[in-house]
């Protein structure tokens, strides 16, 4: 701790940080642009000028940039000094010379860091009477609008996009006052994290295009703290609603999970909530003879569900539904009749993951901890497309080498430009072993593309190399390729030497053996280091982990389908799930046709609801309060943001009797009945800040309350009362700023933009004051487990190609794929082949192939890194059911003329260019 004096007041600060960061940590107002809490300082904008004095006797002092000056012990500075203030005012005056006077038609207006800083610095009149520099805008894809005139050249965008997120297609161009931030040519911004530019840009150069179409000012949105349901990362979000529509999602800071950034799937993939196709009333379908549909009123539908209890019934849960809904279904049908809502392979993987997560040999790292890893091994997972936010964290962890070098050379870590200059391309070792090349290729030290069985064999050898006790691969010895052995020992070395190695595996690789071998490697490392090693086990969906904790290990989906098709059980209740994504079409068809009654709760029509006898409308993620458990076992509470159609109920309400009135009661019940989920009660236990007074979802500037519904009736209805949560659907109450637990949207006096978050952090980048980062459901047990014995025999694949299933950030998630903006970025099904395999079959880039006997069509994309004999097949939603094509024998060229779309949106690191 160092002591510094700011304007005569002594503060205790962290000497390893700069003055700007520490001033903000102390809650002082100091304007800045180019500095970002996550990206350090470059001293580009000159906005954070302060005066520093040599000692108490120094009366003149000198102007320094706070962001470029370390907070050394004994430093005396003044923010309020007249000269410093004058300088800041003049700097912003010059930054604003060409600003285009278009705040009223700017989507950033009202949450604009530039507006805030201009106000704070005191500039108000453009004295410069020469002409303004103007620029032409670019088309940047369906997510982001470009309005280059508003730029103040702080360089944050390229620093974020290129340096932080690893993008390649956004750059600073031209020089002096012509500097331009954009792409080489018009086109879609390729990076999966491009949406963060909206929040990183201090002004309105990059704005949310989808939001602009249904625009509202920040203060007019009704927001509540929510959790993204796009993947298992569990990023914290603030969805905003206006006029009954969900309008946008922005990042919500959580120091342990997503920090300041979201992925594009999470940010833009929410519009399905507003879909016209939403199921808004319960309806019954007669499947015999002519199909007819009949609406059922809510009471009858609930009675019908309650009656099922008396019959033989089984329930199928859902990894994308909340703990509450799954628990309610489990309570309805009984634990022994509650079946997993994911595929059998995934069920096996999830059981294994649960087992490993409670093992004290391993540590379940949070995303924040993943960023600190200094040697990484990824086994089988396409992280960018499965849990995108983790891929962004991995891009930070490989910079560990740069951090080490900086420390060795006594360069402060916040000196961003200097650290990057010093490190050049030096990265911490990261080994990616996947069946097809991933988007992390550019930061990967060793990229190994092979069939899953090949990867498992190699990983076994690595484990064995690290510790002799780990079982080795049976074929490792036979494979006496020296090059391969060198690589294996190098990887093993890197992992062994690391201070904080990280092993990543998961269930989407489609083979539970990958998890076992990953665990073996981690166990070997733990044994050597005699402390737990970070083992990150990914699951694909928001509540895969939560569901897995509720399902008996023998209750797989396959068993459920078999019981139904054999007629042993006549009735089935399906929770927010499309079974055609979980098992082969034939098996699901057989089960659903045989069943007498099929009750499906869901919010959008799916092939499963099309076969239901009773469909129950259920709320989407922003319409109910719920808890989810993310990949690392972190349980988080997501509040209801807005109300929906009155006949639409949270799924659990359809299943629970009337004795459970509030979701909090259900959460408590769930916590008490399921030992693993007992921490859920922590999430709701926070007492009211002022008893009886709720926290408003609407900002204190929320407008139009007496006019928004006046066209329907001039007599304003009473604000709806939220019986369930600590929040209210109004402006009145304790401001959420008083309790960061429920800080949906950060705002502080004179800080209207998202930069105001520093006012709510313990220190910059620290935990939120009073904030809840979620509760870990897994308690570590000292289980004496030994290494997994793995019998890895390359399966006698029926096909001459070993097919693995590829994932896509835009498309692999069921719900976000129903959002118009996401659809624009989705690709049709494709099959990635090596050049040799393509040539031998006479296939060219862009040809279409038929998969086996099925009618499934995929587009050929030749991938330069694809191993010969393997293929990566991406099954687009609604086109191919992956379980139908798992057993295909051949692929053959198809001369189908039907429009299958093109692969323009496909982002591959190893796209083979045909010249």
């Amino acid at each position: 701790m160092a002591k510094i004096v700011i304007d005569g007041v002594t503060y205790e600060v962290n000497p390893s940080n700069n003055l700007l960061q520490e001033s903000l940590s102390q809650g002082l107002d100091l304007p800045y642009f180019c500095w970002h809490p996550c990206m350090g300082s470059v001293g580009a904008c000159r906005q954070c000028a302060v005066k520093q004095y040599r000692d108490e006797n120094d009366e003149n002092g000198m102007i320094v940039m706070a962001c470029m000056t370390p907070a050394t012990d004994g430093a005396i500075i003044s923010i309020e000094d007249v000269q410093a203030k004058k300088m800041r005012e003049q700097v912003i005056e010059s930054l604003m010379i060409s600003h285009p006077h278009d705040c009223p038609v700017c989507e950033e207006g009202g949450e604009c860091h530039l507006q805030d800083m201009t106000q704070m610095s005191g500039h108000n009149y453009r004295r410069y009477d020469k002409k303004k520099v103007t620029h032409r805008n670019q088309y940047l894809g369906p997510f982001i609008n470009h309005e280059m005139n508003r730029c103040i050249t702080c360089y944050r965008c390229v620093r974020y996009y290129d340096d932080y997120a690893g993008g390649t297609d956004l750059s600073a161009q031209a020089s002096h006052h012509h500097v331009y931030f954009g792409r080489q040519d018009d086109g879609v911004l390729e990076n999966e994290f491009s949406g963060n530019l909206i929040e990183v840009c201090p002004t309105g150069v990059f704005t949310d295009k989808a939001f602009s179409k249904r625009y509202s000012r920040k203060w007019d949105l009704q927001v509540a703290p929510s959790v993204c349901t796009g993947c298992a990362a569990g990023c914290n979000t603030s969805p905003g609603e206006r006029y009954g529509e969900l309008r946008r999602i922005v990042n919500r800071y959580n120091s342990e999970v997503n920090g300041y950034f979201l992925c594009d799937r999470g940010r833009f993939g929410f519009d399905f909530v507003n879909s016209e196709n939403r199921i808004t009333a319960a309806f019954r379908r007669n499947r015999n003879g002519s199909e007819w549909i009949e609406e059922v009123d809510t009471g009858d539908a609930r009675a019908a569900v309650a009656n099922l209890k008396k019959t033989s019934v089984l329930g199928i849960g859902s990894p994308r539904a909340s703990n509450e809904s799954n628990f309610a279904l489990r309570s309805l049908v009984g634990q022994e009749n509650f079946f997993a809502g994911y595929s059998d392979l995934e069920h096996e993987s999830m059981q294994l993951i649960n087992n490993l997560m409670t093992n004290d040999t391993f540590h379940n790292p949070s995303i924040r901890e993943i960023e600190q890893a200094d040697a990484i091994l990824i086994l089988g997972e396409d992280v960018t497309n499965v849990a995108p936010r983790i891929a962004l964290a991995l891009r930070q962890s490989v910079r560990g080498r740069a951090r080490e070098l900086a420390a060795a050379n006594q360069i402060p870590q916040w000196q961003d430009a200097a650290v990057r200059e010093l490190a050049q391309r030096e990265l911490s070792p990261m080994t990616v072993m996947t069946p097809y090349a991933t988007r992390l290729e550019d930061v990967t030290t060793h990229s190994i593309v092979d069939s899953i069985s090949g990867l498992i064999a190699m990983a076994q050898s690595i484990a064995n190399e690290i510790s002799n006790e780990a079982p080795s691969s049976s074929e490792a010895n036979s494979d006496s390729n020296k090059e391969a052995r060198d690589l294996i020992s190098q990887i093993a070395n890197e992992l062994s030497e690391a201070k904080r190695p990280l092993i990543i595996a998961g269930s989407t690789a489609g083979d539970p053996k990958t998890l076992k071998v990953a665990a073996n490697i981690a166990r070997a490392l733990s044994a050597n280091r005699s402390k737990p090693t970070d083992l990150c086990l990914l699951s694909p969906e928001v509540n895969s982990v939560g569901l897995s904790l509720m399902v008996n290990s023998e209750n797989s989906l396959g068993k459920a389908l078999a019981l139904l098709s054999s007629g042993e059980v006549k009735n089935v209740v399906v929770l927010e799930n499309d079974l055609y994504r979980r098992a082969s079409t034939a098996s699901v068809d057989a089960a659903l046709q045989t069943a007498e009654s099929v009750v499906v709760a869901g919010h959008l029509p799916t092939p499963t609801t099309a076969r239901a006898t009773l469909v129950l409308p259920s709320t989407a993620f922003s319409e109910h309060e719920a808890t989810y458990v993310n990949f690392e076992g972190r349980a988080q509470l997501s509040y209801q943001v807005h109300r929906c159609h009155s006949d639409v109920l949270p799924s659990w309400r359809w299943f629970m009797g009337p004795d459970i009135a509030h979701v909090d009661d259900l959460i408590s019940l769930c916590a008490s009945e399921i030992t693993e989920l007992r921490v859920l009660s922590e999430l709701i236990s926070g007492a009211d800040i002022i008893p009886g007074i709720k926290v408003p979802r609407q900002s204190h500037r929320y407008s139009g309350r007496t006019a928004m519904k006046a066209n329907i009736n001039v007599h304003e209805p009473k604000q709806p009362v939220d019986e369930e949560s600590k929040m209210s659907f109004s402006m009145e109450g304790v401001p959420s700023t008083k309790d960061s637990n429920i800080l949906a949207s950060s705002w502080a006096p004179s800080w209207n933009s998202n930069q105001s978050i520093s006012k709510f952090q313990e220190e910059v980048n620290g935990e939120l004051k009073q904030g809840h980062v979620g509760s870990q459901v897994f308690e570590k047990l000292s289980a004496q487990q030994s290494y997994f014995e793995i019998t890895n025999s390359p399966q006698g694949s029926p096909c001459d190609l070993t097919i693995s299933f590829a994932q896509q950030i835009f498309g692999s998630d069921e719900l976000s794929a129903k959002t118009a903006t996401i659809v624009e970025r989705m690709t049709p099904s494709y099959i990635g082949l090596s050049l040799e395999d393509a040539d031998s079959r006479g296939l060219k880039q862009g040809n279409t192939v038929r998969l086996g006997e099925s009618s499934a069509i995929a587009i050929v994309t030749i991938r330069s890194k694809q191993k010969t004999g393997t293929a990566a097949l991406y099954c687009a939603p609604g086109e191919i059911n992956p379980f139908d094509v798992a057993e295909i024998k051949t692929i053959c060229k198809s001369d189908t003329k039907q429009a299958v779309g093109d692969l323009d949106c496909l982002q591959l690191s190893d796209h083979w260019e045909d010249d």
Partner: protein
Amino acid sequence: MLKLIQDTLTSQVHTLWLVFKHAFVKADTVQYPEEAPYMSPRWRGRIILSRDPDGEERCVACNLCACACPVDCIALQKAEDEDGRWYPEFFRINFSRCIMCGFCEEACPTNAIQLTPDFEMAEYVRQDMVWEKEDLLINGTGKYHDYNFYRVAGKSIKGKDKGEALNEAEPVNVRSLLP
């Protein structure tokens, strides 16, 4: 005590006398509606939405009026036409709530929303006090005759490209090497 008596006589009795003298002064009351009162152009009465000198809607749906409104009686939704102009998809004022404070006019960056010297807005049915954009929009510039927001603002719209707004230079050619 004498001082108190003196004060009572000089101050209180004098006051009574002064007030009493007002009985012989003509009343200021204007007998509305028989007599029409003079309304200053700056009177804060019925709210209108004006058009710019080119006859286009001035309102750009920036929401500042709604934000400034202390009784929250303005609701609108932004939309964008094919020319790139922002405009309100709907613009509703609930005059049964309006207090004619004029904050909306103060807040308006485009001089679109203006208060007029018309105050005769009473209705027998309160629902009739809810005015939509069609009721509010007039075919004129109102009090401010010359202002056209898009001529000043840097956003390009159809008929006014980048660099053609007030005080703007030609768009930069990023690929040029010239200084």
